[in-house]
Protein backbone atom coordinates (compact mmCIF):
# COMPACT_ATOMS: atom_id res chain seq x y z
CA UNK A 1 0.00 0.00 0.00
CA UNK A 2 2.06 2.84 -1.29
CA UNK A 3 0.51 6.23 -1.47
CA UNK A 4 1.49 8.73 -4.13
CA UNK A 5 3.58 10.76 -1.69
CA UNK A 6 5.55 7.72 -0.65
CA UNK A 7 5.94 6.78 -4.28
CA UNK A 8 7.32 10.21 -5.03
CA UNK A 9 9.78 9.97 -2.21
CA UNK A 10 11.01 6.60 -3.45
CA UNK A 11 11.54 8.06 -6.89
CA UNK A 12 13.26 11.06 -5.41
CA UNK A 13 15.56 8.83 -3.43
CA UNK A 14 16.39 6.84 -6.53
CA UNK A 15 17.24 10.01 -8.45
CA UNK A 16 19.44 11.23 -5.62
CA UNK A 17 21.23 7.91 -5.37
CA UNK A 18 21.85 7.92 -9.09
CA UNK A 19 23.31 11.41 -9.16
CA UNK A 20 25.43 10.63 -6.13
CA UNK A 21 26.77 7.61 -7.93
CA UNK A 22 27.61 9.67 -11.00
CA UNK A 23 29.33 12.32 -8.89
CA UNK A 24 31.30 9.68 -7.05
CA UNK A 25 32.54 8.44 -10.37
CA UNK A 26 33.72 11.85 -11.49
CA UNK A 27 35.20 13.31 -8.31
CA UNK A 28 38.26 11.16 -7.69
CA UNK A 29 39.33 11.47 -11.31
CA UNK A 30 39.40 15.26 -11.19
CA UNK A 31 41.05 15.25 -7.81
CA UNK A 32 43.76 12.98 -9.11
CA UNK A 33 44.32 15.26 -12.08
CA UNK A 34 44.79 18.22 -9.80
CA UNK A 35 47.43 16.77 -7.58
CA UNK A 36 49.08 14.07 -9.63
CA UNK A 37 51.05 16.47 -11.76
CA UNK A 38 52.50 18.40 -8.88
CA UNK A 39 53.18 15.55 -6.55
CA UNK A 40 56.92 15.83 -6.64
CA UNK A 41 56.82 12.07 -6.73
CA UNK A 42 60.22 10.54 -7.17
CA UNK A 43 60.58 8.84 -10.50
CA UNK A 44 62.85 5.99 -11.22
CA UNK A 45 64.53 5.71 -14.60
CA UNK A 46 63.76 9.25 -15.53
CA UNK A 47 65.59 10.17 -18.70
CA UNK A 48 67.82 13.23 -18.96
CA UNK A 49 65.88 14.91 -21.68
CA UNK A 50 62.48 14.00 -22.98
CA UNK A 51 60.99 14.45 -26.44
CA UNK A 52 59.09 17.47 -25.08
CA UNK A 53 59.30 19.74 -22.13
CA UNK A 54 58.83 17.88 -18.85
CA UNK A 55 55.85 19.93 -17.71
CA UNK A 56 54.20 19.41 -21.07
CA UNK A 57 54.83 15.69 -20.93
CA UNK A 58 53.26 15.35 -17.49
CA UNK A 59 50.00 16.73 -18.74
CA UNK A 60 49.96 15.61 -22.34
CA UNK A 61 51.93 12.41 -22.75
CA UNK A 62 48.69 10.51 -23.28
CA UNK A 63 47.67 12.79 -26.13
CA UNK A 64 51.01 12.35 -27.85
CA UNK A 65 50.85 8.60 -27.41
CA UNK A 66 47.28 8.42 -28.65
CA UNK A 67 48.07 10.48 -31.71
CA UNK A 68 51.04 8.31 -32.55
CA UNK A 69 49.04 5.17 -31.81
CA UNK A 70 46.40 6.03 -34.42
CA UNK A 71 49.00 7.05 -36.98
CA UNK A 72 50.94 3.84 -36.55
CA UNK A 73 47.96 1.52 -36.30
CA UNK A 74 45.84 2.98 -39.09
CA UNK A 75 48.40 4.37 -41.50
CA UNK A 76 51.57 2.47 -40.78
CA UNK A 77 53.48 5.63 -39.87
CA UNK A 78 56.35 4.43 -37.72
CA UNK A 79 58.32 7.49 -36.77
CA UNK A 80 60.16 6.62 -33.60
CA UNK A 81 60.20 9.81 -31.56
CA UNK A 82 56.71 9.66 -30.10
CA UNK A 83 56.31 5.91 -30.08
CA UNK A 84 55.56 4.00 -26.91
CA UNK A 85 58.55 1.80 -27.63
CA UNK A 86 60.77 4.87 -27.56
CA UNK A 87 59.34 5.94 -24.18
CA UNK A 88 60.01 2.50 -22.80
CA UNK A 89 63.59 2.38 -24.10
CA UNK A 90 64.42 5.51 -22.11
CA UNK A 91 62.29 5.11 -19.00
CA UNK A 92 62.83 1.45 -18.30
CA UNK A 93 63.69 0.64 -14.73
CA UNK A 94 66.99 -1.24 -14.87
CA UNK A 95 66.01 -3.27 -11.80
CA UNK A 96 62.79 -4.65 -13.22
CA UNK A 97 63.56 -4.15 -16.94
CA UNK A 98 60.06 -2.70 -17.23
CA UNK A 99 58.13 0.55 -17.02
CA UNK A 100 55.04 -0.95 -15.45
CA UNK A 101 55.75 -4.12 -13.54
CA UNK A 102 55.89 -2.51 -10.09
CA UNK A 103 55.03 0.72 -8.34
CA UNK A 104 58.68 1.67 -8.59
CA UNK A 105 58.58 1.67 -12.37
CA UNK A 106 58.27 4.87 -14.34
CA UNK A 107 54.69 4.62 -15.57
CA UNK A 108 53.20 3.01 -12.50
CA UNK A 109 55.00 5.38 -10.14
CA UNK A 110 52.75 8.22 -11.16
CA UNK A 111 49.71 6.25 -12.23
CA UNK A 112 49.44 4.41 -8.96
CA UNK A 113 49.79 7.66 -7.05
CA UNK A 114 47.18 9.38 -9.20
CA UNK A 115 44.96 6.29 -9.23
CA UNK A 116 44.60 6.46 -13.01
CA UNK A 117 44.43 3.11 -14.74
CA UNK A 118 46.92 2.53 -17.54
CA UNK A 119 45.50 0.41 -20.29
CA UNK A 120 48.60 0.29 -22.51
CA UNK A 121 50.29 -2.70 -20.96
CA UNK A 122 47.30 -5.00 -21.18
CA UNK A 123 48.53 -5.54 -24.73
CA UNK A 124 51.83 -3.71 -25.13
CA UNK A 125 55.01 -5.10 -23.69
CA UNK A 126 56.29 -2.95 -20.86
CA UNK A 127 59.82 -4.09 -21.56
CA UNK A 128 62.25 -2.74 -24.13
CA UNK A 129 63.12 -4.94 -27.03
CA UNK A 130 66.45 -6.64 -26.51
CA UNK A 131 68.81 -4.53 -28.64
CA UNK A 132 70.07 -6.69 -31.46
CA UNK A 133 72.89 -5.03 -33.39
CA UNK A 134 71.58 -3.30 -36.47
CA UNK A 135 68.05 -4.36 -35.66
CA UNK A 136 67.13 -1.85 -33.00
CA UNK A 137 63.82 -0.55 -34.22
CA UNK A 138 64.20 2.89 -32.74
CA UNK A 139 67.61 3.60 -34.11
CA UNK A 140 67.69 4.44 -37.78
CA UNK A 141 70.83 3.72 -39.77
CA UNK A 142 71.81 7.42 -39.79
CA UNK A 143 71.59 7.54 -36.05
CA UNK A 144 73.64 4.43 -35.75
CA UNK A 145 76.60 5.83 -37.61
CA UNK A 146 76.23 9.19 -35.92
CA UNK A 147 76.10 7.93 -32.42
CA UNK A 148 77.82 4.58 -32.15
CA UNK A 149 79.39 5.55 -28.86
CA UNK A 150 76.30 7.36 -27.71
CA UNK A 151 74.21 4.30 -28.23
CA UNK A 152 75.19 2.91 -24.89
CA UNK A 153 73.47 5.83 -23.25
CA UNK A 154 69.87 6.03 -24.36
CA UNK A 155 69.43 9.48 -22.91
CA UNK A 156 72.34 10.64 -24.98
CA UNK A 157 70.49 9.49 -28.05
CA UNK A 158 67.40 11.31 -26.92
CA UNK A 159 69.36 14.49 -26.47
CA UNK A 160 70.65 14.09 -29.97
CA UNK A 161 67.12 13.69 -31.24
CA UNK A 162 65.98 16.70 -29.27
CA UNK A 163 68.55 18.94 -30.90
CA UNK A 164 67.32 17.79 -34.25
CA UNK A 165 63.71 18.47 -33.40
CA UNK A 166 64.12 21.63 -31.39
CA UNK A 167 63.10 23.95 -34.19
CA UNK A 168 59.84 22.22 -34.93
CA UNK A 169 58.78 21.74 -31.36
CA UNK A 170 57.37 23.95 -28.75
CA UNK A 171 55.18 23.33 -25.79
CA UNK A 172 51.91 24.65 -27.11
CA UNK A 173 52.11 22.94 -30.44
CA UNK A 174 53.31 19.64 -29.17
CA UNK A 175 51.85 16.96 -31.33
CA UNK A 176 51.60 17.91 -34.92
Amino acid at each position, binding site marked *: *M*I*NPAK*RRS*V*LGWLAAALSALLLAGVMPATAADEHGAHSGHKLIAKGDKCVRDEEYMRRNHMKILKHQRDDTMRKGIRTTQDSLKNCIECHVNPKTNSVASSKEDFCMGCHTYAAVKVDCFECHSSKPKAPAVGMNPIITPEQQSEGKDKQSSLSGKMRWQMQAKQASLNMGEGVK
Partner: protein
Amino acid sequence: MNNDVFRKSKDGAFYFVLGVIGLVVLAGLGAAYYMEHHGHVVTGMTNQIVWGLPHVFAIFLIVAASGVLNVASIGSVFGKPMYKARGPLAGLLAIAMLAGGLMVLMLDLGRADRLIIAMTYLNLKSVFALNVFLYTVFFTVVALYLWTMMDRKMHAYSKYVGFAAFIWRLALTTGTGAIFGFLVARQAYGTALLAPMFIIMSFSFGLAVFMIVQAVMYRWNDRVLDEAIQHRMKNLLAVFVAAVLYFTVVYHMTNLYFAKQTDFERFILLDGGVYTNLFWFGQILLGTLAPLAILFHPDLSKRSSWIVMAAMLVILGGFAQLYVLLIGGQAFPLSIFPGMVESSSFFDGRIHTYSPSLPEFLLGIGGVAAAALITAIAVKVLPFMPEDKVHKVIAAD
Protein backbone atom coordinates in the same frame (compact mmCIF):
# COMPACT_ATOMS: atom_id res chain seq x y z
CA MET B 1 -6.50 3.76 -7.98
CA ASN B 2 -4.66 0.53 -7.55
CA ASN B 3 -2.84 1.41 -4.41
CA ASP B 4 -4.35 -1.68 -2.90
CA VAL B 5 -2.73 -3.83 -5.54
CA PHE B 6 0.20 -4.90 -3.48
CA ARG B 7 -1.48 -5.32 -0.20
CA LYS B 8 0.36 -4.48 2.92
CA SER B 9 -0.14 -7.97 4.32
CA LYS B 10 2.13 -9.22 1.57
CA ASP B 11 4.79 -6.54 1.88
CA GLY B 12 7.12 -8.91 3.70
CA ALA B 13 6.76 -11.52 1.02
CA PHE B 14 7.33 -8.90 -1.65
CA TYR B 15 10.59 -7.73 -0.17
CA PHE B 16 11.69 -11.29 0.29
CA VAL B 17 11.08 -12.03 -3.38
CA LEU B 18 12.81 -8.78 -4.28
CA GLY B 19 15.79 -9.82 -2.17
CA VAL B 20 16.04 -13.20 -3.84
CA ILE B 21 15.89 -11.64 -7.30
CA GLY B 22 18.49 -9.11 -6.22
CA LEU B 23 20.82 -11.88 -5.11
CA VAL B 24 20.53 -13.55 -8.51
CA VAL B 25 21.40 -10.24 -10.17
CA LEU B 26 24.42 -9.93 -7.88
CA ALA B 27 25.49 -13.47 -8.71
CA GLY B 28 25.29 -12.54 -12.40
CA LEU B 29 27.42 -9.44 -11.87
CA GLY B 30 29.88 -11.46 -9.83
CA ALA B 31 30.11 -14.01 -12.61
CA ALA B 32 30.75 -11.25 -15.14
CA TYR B 33 33.53 -9.86 -12.96
CA TYR B 34 35.04 -13.32 -12.65
CA MET B 35 34.97 -13.83 -16.42
CA GLU B 36 36.39 -10.37 -17.00
CA HIS B 37 39.18 -10.84 -14.49
CA HIS B 38 40.36 -14.25 -15.65
CA GLY B 39 39.42 -13.89 -19.28
CA HIS B 40 37.03 -16.08 -21.19
CA VAL B 41 39.22 -19.07 -20.55
CA VAL B 42 37.06 -19.76 -17.48
CA THR B 43 33.96 -20.08 -19.65
CA GLY B 44 32.97 -22.89 -21.98
CA MET B 45 33.44 -20.58 -24.94
CA THR B 46 36.38 -21.22 -27.23
CA ASN B 47 37.79 -20.04 -30.53
CA GLN B 48 35.32 -22.45 -32.14
CA ILE B 49 32.18 -21.62 -30.18
CA VAL B 50 32.68 -17.90 -29.85
CA TRP B 51 29.19 -17.05 -28.69
CA GLY B 52 27.84 -19.18 -25.87
CA LEU B 53 25.13 -19.44 -23.27
CA PRO B 54 25.15 -15.72 -22.34
CA HIS B 55 24.24 -14.91 -25.92
CA VAL B 56 21.36 -17.40 -25.85
CA PHE B 57 19.97 -15.60 -22.80
CA ALA B 58 20.68 -12.14 -24.19
CA ILE B 59 19.06 -12.82 -27.54
CA PHE B 60 16.06 -14.46 -25.90
CA LEU B 61 15.55 -11.41 -23.70
CA ILE B 62 16.02 -8.93 -26.54
CA VAL B 63 13.70 -10.84 -28.86
CA ALA B 64 11.04 -11.30 -26.16
CA ALA B 65 11.35 -7.62 -25.20
CA SER B 66 10.34 -6.58 -28.66
CA GLY B 67 7.57 -9.17 -28.83
CA VAL B 68 5.98 -8.36 -25.50
CA LEU B 69 5.22 -4.89 -26.80
CA ASN B 70 2.85 -6.57 -29.23
CA VAL B 71 0.29 -6.68 -26.43
CA ALA B 72 0.39 -2.89 -26.19
CA SER B 73 0.33 -2.47 -29.95
CA ILE B 74 -2.83 -4.54 -30.33
CA GLY B 75 -4.41 -2.15 -27.86
CA SER B 76 -3.18 1.19 -29.20
CA VAL B 77 -2.69 0.53 -32.87
CA PHE B 78 -5.52 -1.90 -33.47
CA GLY B 79 -7.80 -0.42 -30.81
CA LYS B 80 -8.70 -3.45 -28.69
CA PRO B 81 -9.68 -2.24 -25.19
CA MET B 82 -8.73 -5.49 -23.45
CA TYR B 83 -5.18 -5.16 -24.74
CA LYS B 84 -5.17 -1.43 -24.07
CA ALA B 85 -5.53 -2.14 -20.36
CA ARG B 86 -2.42 -4.30 -20.62
CA GLY B 87 -0.38 -1.80 -22.62
CA PRO B 88 1.52 -0.23 -19.71
CA LEU B 89 2.60 -3.60 -18.32
CA ALA B 90 3.70 -4.69 -21.79
CA GLY B 91 5.74 -1.50 -22.22
CA LEU B 92 7.37 -1.98 -18.84
CA LEU B 93 8.28 -5.59 -19.61
CA ALA B 94 9.72 -4.51 -22.95
CA ILE B 95 12.05 -2.00 -21.30
CA ALA B 96 12.98 -4.38 -18.48
CA MET B 97 13.78 -7.33 -20.73
CA LEU B 98 15.74 -5.25 -23.21
CA ALA B 99 17.76 -3.84 -20.32
CA GLY B 100 18.37 -7.34 -18.95
CA GLY B 101 19.37 -8.68 -22.36
CA LEU B 102 21.75 -5.82 -23.09
CA MET B 103 23.29 -6.19 -19.65
CA VAL B 104 24.21 -9.79 -20.46
CA LEU B 105 25.48 -8.90 -23.92
CA MET B 106 27.63 -6.03 -22.65
CA LEU B 107 29.04 -7.91 -19.67
CA ASP B 108 30.10 -10.79 -21.87
CA LEU B 109 32.29 -8.56 -24.05
CA GLY B 110 35.99 -9.29 -23.96
CA ARG B 111 36.49 -5.66 -23.00
CA ALA B 112 33.33 -4.77 -21.12
CA ASP B 113 35.22 -1.79 -19.70
CA ARG B 114 35.11 -0.25 -23.17
CA LEU B 115 31.34 0.17 -23.24
CA ILE B 116 31.85 3.84 -24.02
CA ILE B 117 33.78 2.87 -27.16
CA ALA B 118 30.91 0.67 -28.26
CA MET B 119 28.70 3.72 -28.13
CA THR B 120 31.05 6.33 -29.56
CA TYR B 121 32.86 4.50 -32.35
CA LEU B 122 30.19 3.29 -34.74
CA ASN B 123 30.87 1.48 -37.97
CA LEU B 124 27.60 2.19 -39.72
CA LYS B 125 28.01 -0.76 -42.05
CA SER B 126 27.82 -3.13 -39.09
CA VAL B 127 24.48 -4.66 -38.13
CA PHE B 128 25.73 -4.65 -34.55
CA ALA B 129 26.26 -0.90 -34.60
CA LEU B 130 22.85 -0.51 -36.20
CA ASN B 131 21.42 -2.51 -33.33
CA VAL B 132 23.01 -0.19 -30.77
CA PHE B 133 21.03 2.60 -32.46
CA LEU B 134 17.85 0.50 -32.64
CA TYR B 135 18.03 -0.38 -28.93
CA THR B 136 18.63 3.20 -27.80
CA VAL B 137 15.70 4.57 -29.79
CA PHE B 138 13.55 1.66 -28.65
CA PHE B 139 14.12 2.59 -25.01
CA THR B 140 13.18 6.19 -25.74
CA VAL B 141 10.11 5.41 -27.81
CA VAL B 142 8.76 2.86 -25.33
CA ALA B 143 9.35 5.24 -22.43
CA LEU B 144 7.39 7.91 -24.30
CA TYR B 145 4.73 5.34 -25.10
CA LEU B 146 4.41 4.46 -21.42
CA TRP B 147 4.02 8.14 -20.64
CA THR B 148 1.21 8.57 -23.17
CA MET B 149 -0.53 5.47 -21.86
CA MET B 150 -0.22 6.27 -18.17
CA ASP B 151 -0.69 10.02 -18.09
CA ARG B 152 -4.30 10.99 -18.73
CA LYS B 153 -3.22 14.29 -20.30
CA MET B 154 -1.12 12.44 -22.84
CA HIS B 155 -3.67 9.81 -23.87
CA ALA B 156 -4.39 11.61 -27.12
CA TYR B 157 -0.88 10.90 -28.39
CA SER B 158 -0.90 7.29 -27.34
CA LYS B 159 -2.03 6.00 -30.70
CA TYR B 160 0.70 7.81 -32.64
CA VAL B 161 3.52 6.96 -30.29
CA GLY B 162 2.14 3.43 -30.15
CA PHE B 163 2.34 3.23 -33.91
CA ALA B 164 5.92 4.48 -33.88
CA ALA B 165 6.79 1.89 -31.25
CA PHE B 166 5.10 -0.80 -33.32
CA ILE B 167 7.18 0.04 -36.41
CA TRP B 168 10.37 0.41 -34.38
CA ARG B 169 9.84 -2.93 -32.71
CA LEU B 170 9.62 -4.63 -36.09
CA ALA B 171 12.81 -2.86 -37.17
CA LEU B 172 14.54 -3.88 -33.96
CA THR B 173 13.79 -7.56 -34.31
CA THR B 174 14.67 -7.43 -38.00
CA GLY B 175 18.00 -6.07 -36.81
CA THR B 176 18.41 -8.90 -34.29
CA GLY B 177 17.62 -11.48 -36.96
CA ALA B 178 19.98 -9.73 -39.36
CA ILE B 179 22.88 -10.18 -36.93
CA PHE B 180 22.74 -13.78 -38.08
CA GLY B 181 21.12 -13.21 -41.44
CA PHE B 182 24.12 -11.19 -42.62
CA LEU B 183 26.69 -13.85 -41.76
CA VAL B 184 27.74 -15.29 -45.08
CA ALA B 185 30.39 -17.62 -43.69
CA ARG B 186 28.35 -20.11 -41.70
CA GLN B 187 25.81 -22.54 -43.01
CA ALA B 188 23.25 -22.05 -40.26
CA TYR B 189 22.99 -18.34 -40.96
CA GLY B 190 23.22 -16.10 -44.00
CA THR B 191 19.54 -16.15 -44.89
CA ALA B 192 17.05 -13.28 -44.92
CA LEU B 193 14.47 -15.73 -43.58
CA LEU B 194 15.98 -15.22 -40.13
CA ALA B 195 14.63 -11.65 -39.91
CA PRO B 196 10.90 -12.48 -40.21
CA MET B 197 11.50 -15.67 -38.25
CA PHE B 198 12.92 -13.65 -35.37
CA ILE B 199 9.91 -11.33 -35.52
CA ILE B 200 7.44 -14.18 -35.21
CA MET B 201 9.60 -15.73 -32.49
CA SER B 202 9.43 -12.42 -30.65
CA PHE B 203 5.63 -12.42 -30.83
CA SER B 204 5.51 -15.92 -29.40
CA PHE B 205 8.14 -15.56 -26.66
CA GLY B 206 6.95 -12.08 -25.72
CA LEU B 207 3.33 -13.06 -25.31
CA ALA B 208 4.31 -16.14 -23.31
CA VAL B 209 6.36 -13.98 -20.93
CA PHE B 210 3.51 -11.51 -20.65
CA MET B 211 0.97 -14.19 -19.80
CA ILE B 212 3.17 -15.58 -17.06
CA VAL B 213 3.87 -12.18 -15.50
CA GLN B 214 0.19 -11.33 -15.72
CA ALA B 215 -0.77 -14.61 -14.06
CA VAL B 216 1.70 -13.98 -11.24
CA MET B 217 0.37 -10.48 -10.66
CA TYR B 218 -3.25 -11.67 -10.58
CA ARG B 219 -2.41 -14.52 -8.24
CA TRP B 220 -0.42 -12.25 -5.94
CA ASN B 221 -3.40 -9.94 -5.61
CA ASP B 222 -5.91 -12.77 -5.36
CA ARG B 223 -7.66 -11.65 -8.45
CA VAL B 224 -9.10 -13.81 -11.20
CA LEU B 225 -8.38 -13.09 -14.81
CA ASP B 226 -11.54 -12.80 -16.85
CA GLU B 227 -12.20 -15.97 -18.81
CA ALA B 228 -12.86 -14.17 -22.07
CA ILE B 229 -9.50 -12.37 -21.84
CA GLN B 230 -7.73 -15.57 -20.98
CA HIS B 231 -9.38 -17.29 -23.92
CA ARG B 232 -8.33 -14.62 -26.38
CA MET B 233 -4.75 -14.50 -25.20
CA LYS B 234 -4.27 -18.25 -25.26
CA ASN B 235 -5.63 -18.41 -28.80
CA LEU B 236 -3.24 -15.68 -29.88
CA LEU B 237 -0.34 -17.53 -28.29
CA ALA B 238 -1.32 -20.71 -30.14
CA VAL B 239 -1.32 -18.83 -33.44
CA PHE B 240 2.15 -17.44 -32.77
CA VAL B 241 3.54 -20.83 -31.72
CA ALA B 242 2.18 -22.36 -34.91
CA ALA B 243 3.69 -19.54 -36.95
CA VAL B 244 7.12 -20.17 -35.43
CA LEU B 245 6.73 -23.83 -36.32
CA TYR B 246 5.90 -22.83 -39.88
CA PHE B 247 9.07 -20.73 -40.18
CA THR B 248 11.14 -23.52 -38.66
CA VAL B 249 9.80 -25.97 -41.24
CA VAL B 250 10.49 -23.57 -44.11
CA TYR B 251 14.02 -22.91 -42.82
CA HIS B 252 14.93 -26.58 -42.66
CA MET B 253 13.11 -27.57 -45.86
CA THR B 254 14.98 -24.88 -47.80
CA ASN B 255 18.28 -26.10 -46.42
CA LEU B 256 17.44 -29.71 -47.20
CA TYR B 257 16.80 -28.79 -50.82
CA PHE B 258 20.32 -27.35 -51.28
CA ALA B 259 22.85 -30.13 -51.67
CA LYS B 260 25.58 -28.04 -50.03
CA GLN B 261 23.43 -27.69 -46.90
CA THR B 262 22.44 -31.32 -46.43
CA ASP B 263 25.40 -32.17 -44.21
CA PHE B 264 24.49 -29.33 -41.91
CA GLU B 265 20.84 -30.41 -41.80
CA ARG B 266 21.86 -33.98 -41.12
CA PHE B 267 23.85 -32.66 -38.18
CA ILE B 268 20.99 -30.65 -36.68
CA LEU B 269 18.15 -33.07 -37.46
CA LEU B 270 19.78 -36.50 -37.17
CA ASP B 271 23.17 -36.96 -35.63
CA GLY B 272 24.01 -33.76 -33.79
CA GLY B 273 23.65 -35.31 -30.35
CA VAL B 274 22.65 -32.61 -27.90
CA TYR B 275 21.54 -30.25 -30.67
CA THR B 276 19.36 -32.88 -32.33
CA ASN B 277 17.78 -33.74 -28.99
CA LEU B 278 17.22 -30.11 -28.15
CA PHE B 279 15.66 -29.56 -31.54
CA TRP B 280 13.24 -32.49 -31.53
CA PHE B 281 12.47 -32.80 -27.82
CA GLY B 282 13.09 -29.25 -26.67
CA GLN B 283 11.90 -27.05 -29.48
CA ILE B 284 9.44 -29.23 -31.36
CA LEU B 285 7.91 -31.56 -28.76
CA LEU B 286 8.01 -29.55 -25.53
CA GLY B 287 8.17 -26.07 -27.00
CA THR B 288 5.68 -26.40 -29.85
CA LEU B 289 3.50 -29.51 -29.94
CA ALA B 290 2.88 -29.75 -26.19
CA PRO B 291 1.75 -26.12 -25.79
CA LEU B 292 -0.37 -26.37 -28.92
CA ALA B 293 -2.03 -29.49 -27.50
CA ILE B 294 -2.73 -27.71 -24.21
CA LEU B 295 -3.94 -24.51 -25.80
CA PHE B 296 -6.38 -26.30 -28.10
CA HIS B 297 -7.45 -28.96 -25.61
CA PRO B 298 -11.19 -28.52 -24.89
CA ASP B 299 -10.72 -28.90 -21.13
CA LEU B 300 -7.16 -27.93 -20.24
CA SER B 301 -7.27 -24.75 -22.32
CA LYS B 302 -9.86 -23.37 -19.89
CA ARG B 303 -7.68 -23.76 -16.82
CA SER B 304 -5.43 -20.86 -16.11
CA SER B 305 -2.71 -23.01 -14.53
CA TRP B 306 -2.48 -25.11 -17.71
CA ILE B 307 -2.31 -22.02 -19.84
CA VAL B 308 0.57 -20.74 -17.73
CA MET B 309 2.17 -24.15 -18.13
CA ALA B 310 1.81 -23.85 -21.91
CA ALA B 311 3.41 -20.39 -21.83
CA MET B 312 6.31 -21.75 -19.79
CA LEU B 313 6.80 -24.54 -22.31
CA VAL B 314 6.86 -21.96 -25.10
CA ILE B 315 9.67 -20.13 -23.28
CA LEU B 316 11.53 -23.38 -22.72
CA GLY B 317 11.14 -24.21 -26.41
CA GLY B 318 12.37 -20.73 -27.26
CA PHE B 319 15.57 -21.26 -25.31
CA ALA B 320 16.04 -24.64 -26.98
CA GLN B 321 15.49 -23.09 -30.40
CA LEU B 322 18.01 -20.30 -29.80
CA TYR B 323 20.52 -22.76 -28.35
CA VAL B 324 20.28 -24.95 -31.44
CA LEU B 325 20.50 -21.96 -33.79
CA LEU B 326 23.37 -20.23 -31.96
CA ILE B 327 25.49 -22.98 -30.52
CA GLY B 328 24.48 -25.71 -32.97
CA GLY B 329 25.11 -23.30 -35.82
CA GLN B 330 28.65 -22.73 -34.59
CA ALA B 331 29.32 -26.34 -33.62
CA PHE B 332 29.10 -27.37 -37.25
CA PRO B 333 32.52 -26.61 -38.74
CA LEU B 334 33.09 -24.05 -41.46
CA SER B 335 33.32 -25.51 -44.92
CA ILE B 336 36.50 -23.76 -46.01
CA PHE B 337 37.27 -26.22 -48.78
CA PRO B 338 33.94 -27.61 -49.98
CA GLY B 339 34.25 -31.15 -51.28
CA MET B 340 37.35 -31.92 -49.25
CA VAL B 341 37.89 -33.40 -45.84
CA GLU B 342 39.78 -30.94 -43.66
CA SER B 343 41.86 -31.53 -40.58
CA SER B 344 44.16 -29.33 -38.55
CA SER B 345 45.29 -28.47 -35.04
CA PHE B 346 42.62 -25.75 -35.03
CA PHE B 347 39.69 -28.17 -35.15
CA ASP B 348 38.95 -27.65 -38.83
CA GLY B 349 36.49 -30.15 -40.24
CA ARG B 350 35.45 -31.38 -36.80
CA ILE B 351 32.24 -30.88 -34.87
CA HIS B 352 33.09 -28.38 -32.15
CA THR B 353 32.28 -29.14 -28.57
CA TYR B 354 30.85 -26.75 -26.05
CA SER B 355 30.03 -27.24 -22.40
CA PRO B 356 28.60 -24.13 -20.78
CA SER B 357 30.20 -23.15 -17.50
CA LEU B 358 28.55 -21.95 -14.31
CA PRO B 359 29.66 -18.29 -14.67
CA GLU B 360 28.06 -18.14 -18.11
CA PHE B 361 24.81 -19.53 -16.76
CA LEU B 362 24.87 -17.14 -13.81
CA LEU B 363 25.47 -14.18 -16.09
CA GLY B 364 22.58 -15.23 -18.31
CA ILE B 365 20.15 -15.86 -15.49
CA GLY B 366 21.39 -12.63 -13.90
CA GLY B 367 20.06 -10.80 -16.94
CA VAL B 368 16.68 -12.46 -16.52
CA ALA B 369 16.74 -11.49 -12.84
CA ALA B 370 17.65 -7.90 -13.72
CA ALA B 371 14.56 -7.75 -15.95
CA ALA B 372 12.48 -9.24 -13.13
CA LEU B 373 13.91 -6.77 -10.64
CA ILE B 374 13.07 -3.75 -12.80
CA THR B 375 9.56 -5.13 -13.34
CA ALA B 376 8.97 -5.91 -9.66
CA ILE B 377 10.07 -2.48 -8.46
CA ALA B 378 8.07 -0.71 -11.16
CA VAL B 379 4.80 -2.55 -10.52
CA LYS B 380 5.23 -1.79 -6.83
CA VAL B 381 5.54 1.96 -7.26
CA LEU B 382 3.43 2.66 -10.34
CA PRO B 383 0.01 1.40 -11.49
CA PHE B 384 0.89 -1.28 -14.01
CA MET B 385 -1.79 -3.78 -12.95
CA PRO B 386 -4.23 -4.29 -15.82
CA GLU B 387 -7.63 -2.79 -14.91
CA ASP B 388 -10.41 -4.30 -16.99
CA LYS B 389 -13.90 -3.06 -17.33
CA VAL B 390 -15.02 -6.57 -18.03
CA HIS B 391 -18.42 -5.94 -19.56
CA LYS B 392 -17.00 -3.49 -22.03
CA VAL B 393 -14.31 -5.94 -23.09
CA ILE B 394 -16.79 -8.45 -24.34
CA ALA B 395 -19.00 -5.84 -25.95
CA ALA B 396 -16.22 -3.97 -27.69
CA ASP B 397 -14.31 -6.91 -29.02
